[in-house]
């Protein structure tokens, strides 16, 4: 079982590595969205630092949403997804491996680039660690919850717009706690409560969403 998990994980990472140019797109999107805000609101550092946590997190939400399409789409089109569903290994485990691989290639780069963007938006240095920690805890939740939506819409021709309507309302708790934590950290307050909430959401989504994703894929592939 663990070997099947690792095989799926490695396969997806390898496939992602072979399409390196596509990998960079969500990251570029994230950076460009964030750099639009100073252009729209003016370069004043006081304004930017008050909205920075919200800007970073809303951009992360949108970047995660746009990159989600690649989790199952190409496998659906070339038929690999049906083989995965038919395989004797537990589907929940295999989809978890796929989502984990997807998070490694789309979520982790966001975390790594976030210090750079934080300094562009004048986030206080003491909040930087909290920002990276919230991204570390929050982006896997975005990938997992979003994958449920992708699994439901993968068979539809124009699933993109629908996907955002399905998934974005479910992202709201993550947004609230993560942005709140960064704001509080900038004020020098204790943020362990918010981080604990984010951590529990992560645990909850790791345990429950693979089941929902597997069920949704079975429905979509019929």
């Amino acid at each position, binding site marked *: 079982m663990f070997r099947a998990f690792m095989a799926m994980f490695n396969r997806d990472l390898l496939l992602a590595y072979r399409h390196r140019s596509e990998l960079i797109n969500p990251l570029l999107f994230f950076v460009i969205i964030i750099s639009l805000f100073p252009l729209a609101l003016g370069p004043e550092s006081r304004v930017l630092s008050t909205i920075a946590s919200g800007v970073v997190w809303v951009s992360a939400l949108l970047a995660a949403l746009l990159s989600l399409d690649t989790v199952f789409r190409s496998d659906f089109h070339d038929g690999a997804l049906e083989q995965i569903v038919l395989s004797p290994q537990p589907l929940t485990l295999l989809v978890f491996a796929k989502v984990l691989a997807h998070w490694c290639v789309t979520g982790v780069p966001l975390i790594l680039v976030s210090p750079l963007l934080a300094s562009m938006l004048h986030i206080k240095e003491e909040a930087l660690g909290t920002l990276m920690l919230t991204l570390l805890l929050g982006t896997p939740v975005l990938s997992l*919850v979003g994958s*449920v939506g992708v699994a*439901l*819409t993968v*068979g*539809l021709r*124009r*699933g993109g717009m*629908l996907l955002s*309507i*399905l998934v*974005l*309302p*479910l992202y*709201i*708790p993550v947004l*609230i*706690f993560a942005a*709140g934590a960064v704001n509080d950290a900038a004020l020098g307050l204790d943020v362990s409560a918010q981080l604990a*909430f984010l951590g529990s*959401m992560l645990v909850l989504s790791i345990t*429950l*969403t693979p089941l*929902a994703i597997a*069920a*949704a894929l079975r*429905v*979509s592939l*019929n």
Partner: protein
Amino acid sequence: MYTWIHKFGSPKHFYRMAGKIIPWTAAFTLILFAYGLYGALITSPPDYQQGESARIMYVHVPAAWMSMFVYMVLAVAGAIGLIWRIKLADVMAQASAPIGASFTVLALVTGSLWGKPMWGTWWAWDARLTSELILLFLYLGYMGLTTAIEDRRTAARAGAILALVGAVNIPIIHYSVDWWNTLHQGATVTKMSKPSIHIDMLIPLLVMAGAFKLYYFTIVLIRARADVLFNERRSSWVREIIAKVKL
């Protein structure tokens, strides 16, 4: 017990039974609405702080209750449809969704109308209003998904999964919004401290809540009957009904 469930779950039997139940629920809905509205608009005293505009509560609160109740119906019916493959549960869920969405809109609109004289603004990012808005988004997502999938069976099952995921999320969303609101807004919105409600106001409120619930049952049965007829349009008993109507 199982045969009873099986019998009631069969579309033909449901169609007949629902046809008999609908006039009764419709009649009771009218009676309760008449009594509840009379109590709400005439006999109940105006609120000592808010005056006459508090009467919008008699529509707003039942609508908000129903909006949550109907989402739970979606999730429970979806689970029944997924686990036991009862077609009727799928029909009920899909017939309920637009009604639940309309209750949500009604709660939002009445909340906003009430907010104008009370808060001095049409919209405040009050925790309850915000959760209600997110609930509306969830309804719209459900309806968007079920209408986008052409095969009705697949649509119902996909919708059921979405409704279940949403039902797990609703408490999380509700409490996170509550928490966000106390963090960011605090005293800017003068949230009225809720006085324990007077009995003269409580009775019309409960009657109105009953009327809303019966209204929902009436409408959902009518809609589900129409859906059953459409889904079973190729079966012999539906053809018999159609033949009768044409004569």
